[in-house]
Each structure stands twice: as structure tokens, then as C-alpha cells.
């Protein structure tokens, strides 16, 4: 579904991505892990076309993504920090995104109602807390039922109830055969969601394995123990 081939990107002297190659397919929930500054966000942004790579190609459904922008209609992106124009209301933000994608007429508003945003829809974005803004971002991501989800730290800032709701939603979308690419530092949040782990360090791909493989290799069951073990022993791909 998403193919990344020899992707390289540097910011000045700093190499954010160093010839990364990955093949992600439908039905996978791929979890991007790595320390701060390991290139996770850069990789996500390259796939979205927000960062323009120097070398390498990205293909989506075996179509190379370069100047083409239409491919993004198949992607739902939830950014790490969602900031919106101060005086816009929740309803206006959602209406705007709907108007920007006129090809969709059926909306998935499960999270909109689930998070209780329908009761807050007249509030301006400025008056919202960080967590509520994050809820708005989540709603927008799932609104069009895209085939690919890219979630950058989705549960950061959400309260436990909302976080649980979002995780359930991600689980359902996964069962529906969508490709989900998620980054998070809260490993327990990924428990039971992740099917594959991609581990990046200093812009290099350390390994790309399924969770089962890793469980067998480390002899641990819980995801955070698995990862801790891997990081300690420096397991290589």
C-alpha cells in the first residue's frame, strides 16, 4: 500500500532520514518507534508531502508520489499539535474540511459524537483546551474513512476516556482492513493495537518486524517489555 524506497532527507548537516526503505500493506497497524529526533515525524511528513525528500521515492498503491497531490484524499492525518485559527468555531473547522473534500458525501462522525463535540460545536478554537483541540484533530482524521491513517502521537493530551475511545476506533478501523501508521511514546497505548513495529534511530531503520516475531525473539509478552528488551540488547534487523 505504502512503499518507501531509499528515502533520504537532511536538514543542513543533520541527516533526519538515511535511505529508509519500507513496505507497508493493508490491514497492518504499523507503529513507528524511536527516540526523540530519530526521524519519525520527518518520515510521516515525507509520506504526506509536507517535507520534500532529497532522494528516494514514495509510492502509494504502487503510484509514485511526487508533484501529485490528489493521493492525499486517501489519507487521514492526525498531527502531533493541532492549532486552528483562533476565532473559528469547531463546527466551522469541520465544515471547512468537508467543503475541501467535496468528493465525499458520507461522513464518519462517530468520534464527533463520541467525544461530545456536538455539544461544544459553537465554541471558538481559542477557548478550547489542548486536549479538546486534539479531539477535533481526531474527528477530522476519521471523518472521511480513508484507506490510510497516519497518526502522530494520537493519545497525547487526551483524557483516559477519550484515549480509550480513540483506541477502540483505531481497532475497528484496523479490522476493517485499513493501514494505520502510528507514532507514540506511550507504549501501553499501543498494546493490542500494533501489529508491526518500525524502529528508527538517528534516521536509520533499525528493524521492521511483526509484534509476534519480537515477542518470540525476546520471550516477553507485554509490548513495553519487548521494546525495552530490544533496546537493551540492540536487536538488529
Amino acid at each position, binding site marked *: 500500500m505504502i512503499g518507501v524506497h531509499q528515502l533520504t532527507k537532511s*536538514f543542513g548537516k543533520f541527516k533526519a532520514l538515511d535511505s529508509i526503505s519500507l513496505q507497508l500493506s493493508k490491514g497492518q497497524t504499523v507503529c513507528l518507534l524511536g527516540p526523540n529526533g530519530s526521524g519519525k515525524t520527518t518520515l510521516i*511528513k515525507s509520506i*504526506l*508531502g*509536507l*517535507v*520534500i525528500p532529497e532522494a528516494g521515492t514514495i509510492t502509494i498503491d504502487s503510484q509514485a508520489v511526487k508533484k501529485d*497531490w*490528489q*493521493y*492525499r*484524499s486517501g*489519507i487521514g*492525518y492526525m*498531527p502531533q*499539535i*493541532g*492549532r*486552528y*485559527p*483562533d*476565532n*473559528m468555531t469547531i463546527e*466551522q*473547522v469541520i465544515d*471547512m*474540511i468537508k*467543503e*475541501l*473534500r467535496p468528493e465525499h458525501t458520507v461522513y464518519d462522525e462517530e468520534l464527533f459524537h463520541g467525544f461530545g463535540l456536538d455539544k461544544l460545536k459553537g465554541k471558538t478554537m481559542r477557548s478550547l483546551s489542548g486536549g479538546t483541540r486534539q479531539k477535533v*484533530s481526531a474527528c*477530522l482524521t476519521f471523518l472521511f474513512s480513508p484507506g490510510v491513517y497516519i497518526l502522530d502521537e494520537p493519545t497525547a493530551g487526551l483524557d483516559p476516556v477519550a484515549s480509550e475511545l480513540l483506541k477502540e476506533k483505531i481497532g475497528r478501523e484496523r479490522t476493517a482492513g485499513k493501514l494505520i501508521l502510528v507514532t507514540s511514546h506511550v507504549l501501553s497505548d499501543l498494546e493490542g493495537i500494533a501489529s508491526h513495529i518500525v524502529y528508527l534511530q538517528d534516521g536509520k531503520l533499525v528493524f521492521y518486524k511483526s509484534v509476534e516475531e519480537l515477542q518470540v525473539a525476546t520471550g516477553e509478552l507485554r509490548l513495553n517489555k519487548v521494546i525495552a528488551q530490544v533496546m537493551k540488547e540492540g536487536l538488529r534487523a
Partner: protein
Amino acid sequence: MKTIIKYVLLDLFRNKVIMVYTLILAILAISVLNLDDNASKGLLSLLNVTLLFVPIITILFSTIYFFNSIEFIELLLSQPIKRSKVVLAEYYGVALPLAAAYGIGIGVPLLLLAPSTAAVTLLITGILLTLIFSSLALLIFVKSKDKTKGIGVAIITVLFFTLLFDGMLLAFIYSFSDYPIDSAVVGIIAFNPVDLARVLMLLQLDVAVLMGYSGALFKKFLGSATGSVFSIACLLFWVVVPLLLSVRIFNKKDL
């Protein structure tokens, strides 16, 4: 693109800074026009207000607004929309309310209290300056990496055009006063939108000769009609060139 402009406008027309800006301009316009029976004097004062306030407020407000919208722009770019459309929509979304603020704040009192061709010219000048400095703000936004640097560059840019440029022009005229540099000076003025705006207005008011070297030169070399057309053309150039440059740079920018 229309959708984005519509919603950015919805946001900005409720912005308090824009409201206060409109109000201050309106108070200034009404008080200045009521001070004297001579409308021409009032227009001159308003011209000075315009040349002083419009560039700095426009460029600072636009730069800050663009930098505050970075995350929003990212969100828009993750939707199936062309990059150039997003950046142009942001520009129109900021430039239009600022121009409207000027149009309402200065324009309404002016056309009610002292309607004349010169008044219309002042209005056009102010609106063009707004469009130019928000266009420059966009260029600063796409070129700089962080907000603090961007705002710094914006302040330097506006100081350069309102103060430094004239000083350098004077130094140039002074040091080459033995040579026939008159037409060169006219050419140099085209590189400063604030001077262009001043000249455009002064040609209308027939006080060109009283208002410094540049006005006198324009009057002498270009005559009223040609001078006005020339300066309007240059001003439009100042809107379009930074805008096109910004779109080009933005298309390759990493966010």
C-alpha cells in the same frame, strides 16, 4: 481555494486587532479632517499617517498571523489541495481584511467629509500599500525558519523602506550632486513602495514641489498623468513579484 479564503476571512473579521486597527484609523481620519477647513491639508496629514502606520501594522500583523497558522497550514496541506492554492488563500485571507480595515477606517470618513479625486487616490494608495506589505510578509514567512527571526526581518524590512531608504537616497544625491543623476533618482524611487505611494499622492495634490526632491523630480520628468500610471504600475509590481516568489519558494518548503 475559495473555501479556505472564506474561512480565513470568517476568522479574521472577528479578530480584535483588525477591529481596533479600523477604529484607530477612523478616529484619526475624522479628527484630522475636522481640524481644518482645507481638505488638502487634511489629506496630507492622512497621507503621512498612511505612510507611517499602514506598512508597519500590515507587515507585523501578517507575519505574526502567518507564523501562528503554521499548524493550520500543515493540516490544510495534508488534505488533497495544491500547495500554491493554500498559500495564496492564506495571503488573500489576511490581505483582504487589512485592506477592508483601511477602506472602512480611512475611506468612509474621507468620502463623507472630503470627497475628491485626491481622496480616492489616497484610498487606492493605502490599499495598495496594504497589499504590498502583506505580500512582503508572506515572502518573509516562507523564507524564515522561526517566528522570532521572521518578525525581526519584518521590522527591518519596514524600517528600511520607511526610513533607511530615504537616507540612502539623500546620501546618493548628495555625493553625486555634480552629475546629472535626476533620471537615475526617479528609477531608484521605483525600488521603494513607500516612496512610490508618496509620489502618487503628491502628484494628485499639486504640492509635489513642496514635498521634497522625489516629488519634484516626478513632476518634472513624468508629468501628472504618466507619473501616476508609472507609480501605480510599479506598486502593482511590488504586490505581484513577492507573491509569486513566495508561491515558488513555498512549493519547495519543508514544513
